[in-house]
């Protein structure tokens, strides 16, 4: 069944009419308030036009009116599924401009939090992708496990979704005494569930049939559109900022950059993008284990936090590997307490732009899967 995908049908001689359907902004599977204007020939998608902006909250304008630390809660709300990761490139950029060296313990806490949040993000991505394919049960299994991570974040930061935990020069609170054991517990649980998900969902024959050879994103197209993260790696290009331009302390850890290999279909299909996420969870588990082993028990996490942040005049771009791809902040400072301009390179927005290119010629049901495999968050698309 898998070899034939793109549906070619000769419509000459048949009097047909194309139908324009609005998928969204209220739709079970647009993962937020995205509106896709879809033109259908029967059930075959001939044109997709994404309409965005339903969740636009003027992040960039807000940032101009806020002091540097006050911007961080707004950044949390961009990609609200992986807030910890979002904050990181911003604080790195400001620390670099101010010349702040953060303590060793803080670096480890940040790595562990970011990797746990990467797992949580990928759990949601795989879960909702399965839900788009009609599999309801794996969704709940993965959400059950995400709860462990959220509970841990709640204990260290007070928030379950929007943490506001990283701050310039450190983190907002020290970790609690049993933090390391809890991290290892989560790693154990994540591995156990992922094994189950592999059998139940990923290698399920129907799921493979649905996702293999669907929405093939060739690597040159992915690079031309500026895709990053699992979308680019799913196309077989091993680009991971943690490895290619190691920031923070990522050069100390041993992990692999997972790429799509086209195991069940073509390189760069929906299944590949999804399996990259599944395997990245395992890589994150490895990083967490190493970070927990190396993390110093003592140390003041607040020692490098400046009383007042005055960023010297200049501009900087710093990016970090978000679960969804490269998230960067371009910050221009005029030497005051408030940024002159903060411009994010929003991963989801750029990854979404490839959707019309790769979804033509597939069926409506495939379009939903392709959208799910790109894994967007509308908070980040619209900002």
């Amino acid at each position: 069944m898998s070899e034939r995908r793109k549906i070619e049908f000769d419509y000459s001689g048949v009097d047909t009419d194309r139908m324009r359907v609005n998928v969204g902004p209220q739709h079970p599977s647009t993962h937020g308030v995205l509106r896709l204007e879809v033109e259908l020939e029967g059930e075959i998608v001939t044109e997709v036009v994404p309409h965005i902006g339903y969740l636009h909250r003027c992040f960039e304008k807000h940032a101009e009116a806020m002091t540097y630390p006050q911007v961080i809660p707004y950044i949390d709300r961009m990609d609200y599924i992986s807030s910890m990761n979002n904050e990181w490139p911003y604080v790195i950029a400001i620390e670099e401009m101010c010349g702040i060296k953060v303590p060793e313990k803080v670096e480890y806490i940040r790595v562990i939090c970011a990797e746990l949040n990467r797992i949580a993000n990928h759990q949601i991505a795989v879960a909702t992708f399965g839900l788009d394919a009609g599999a309801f049960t794996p969704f709940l299994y993965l959400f059950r496990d995400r709860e462990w991570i959220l509970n841990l974040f709640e204990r260290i930061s007070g928030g379950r979704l929007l943490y506001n935990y990283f701050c310039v020069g450190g983190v907002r609170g020290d970790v609690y005494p049993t933090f390391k054991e809890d991290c290892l517990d989560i790693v154990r649980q994540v591995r156990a569930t992922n094994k189950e998900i592999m059998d139940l969902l990923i290698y399920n024959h129907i799921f493979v049939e649905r996702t293999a050879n669907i929405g093939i994103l060739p690597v040159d197209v992915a690079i031309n559109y500026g895709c990053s993260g699992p979308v680019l790696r799913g196309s077989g290009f091993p680009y991971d900022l943690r490895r290619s331009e190691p920031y923070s302390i990522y050069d100390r850890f041993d992990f692999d950059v997972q790429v799509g290999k086209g195991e069940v279909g073509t390189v760069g299909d929906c299944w590949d993008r999804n399996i990259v996420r599944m395997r990245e969870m395992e890589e994150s588990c490895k990083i967490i284990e190493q970070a927990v082993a190396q993390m110093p028990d003592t140390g003041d996490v607040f020692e490098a936090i400046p009383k007042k942040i005055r960023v010297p005049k200049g501009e900087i771009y710093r990016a970090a590997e978000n679960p969804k791809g490269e998230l960067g902040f371009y910050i221009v400072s005029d030497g005051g307490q408030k940024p002159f301009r903060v411009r994010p390179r929003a991963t989801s927005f750029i990854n979404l732009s490839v959707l019309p290119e790769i979804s033509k010629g597939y069926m409506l049901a495939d379009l939903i899967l392709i959208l799910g495999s790109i894994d967007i968050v509308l908070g980040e698309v619209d900002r």
Partner: protein
Amino acid sequence: MEHNFIYNLINSDIVAIIAIILLPLIFVLIYALIAILGELKIASFVQERLGPMRTGPWGIIQPVAEVVKLIQKEDITPAAADKKLFNLAPYIMFVGAFAAFAVIPFGPAFVPADINLGLFYLFAVGAFAIIGIVMGGWASNNKYSLLGAMRSAAQIISYEIPAGVALLAIASLAGSLNLNEIIESQSGWFWNWYLFGGDGPIWKIFVIPFTLILFIIFLVSTLAETNRTPFDIPEGESEIVAGYHTEYSGIKFAMFFFAEYANMFVVSALITILFLGGWNSPFGDFMSGPIWGAFWFILKAFFFVFVQIWLRWTLPRLRVDQLMYMGWKVLVPFSFVCFFAIAFWAMVK
């Protein structure tokens, strides 16, 4: 008439006929409540959660609450809908599901209508539901509903043919289209069921693989007939919102819902009749008789209702062209091979 205990109990023909009509209806209503609770509880068992626990002990009154909720809801008819067809569709679907109960033999002593074309009738009214779906999908004046209706039309021609060929094969084995005769020809121990080639000499072991394959073909086709995962394509929730019943609410939605559950029982009953010996006890004369017959029949049918619920919460959904591919290129050829093998066996035995 000799197959119905109510005629023996009640002297008046009219009262007896009314009782015979009402009895399956009452059964369906009670069954639907049990099936809804089963769906909720099996889903929550599969998903490692508790499910409804507040309404009544262990949540057993939850289905009643669901039905009451649906009845209380506002019954909305879209302004641009074709009102006549829109209002008619859920009833057609329900009639199709309930009409099947006219011939289902619950036991040796309860067959509402013992007609010679029972199997044919059951198959014909089973296809009735599609008319309701297409009607409702078209009349809603909603693009998602229309897509759902079209998918349903594409679906029926894919699964009805292998299902029909499977029925033919069993009819040729039994030599009858009368459901009661089909069941009676499978009496005795469970190896006389058509799942295991039916009654016959030891050489029937050559036909057992074919009947087993036929059973799987028929099971897959019936899953498609009830529009449930992995074949819930006409209502494919993640793509076309709720498919053909997107615009329905209140009591009309409840009718669709009810018809789906009734259909689940009908196809399970059909599998039971054709392959599992209907009301026959699996152990020969042990636990057989009119009341045990009803027990065995309902037990076997409920097992297949359980299988449908189980599959729904386990598998992802197929795409509409994959279902058609499977129907036409896999199930139809296999069902024909099985049919020829079984017909040859029926001829030589």
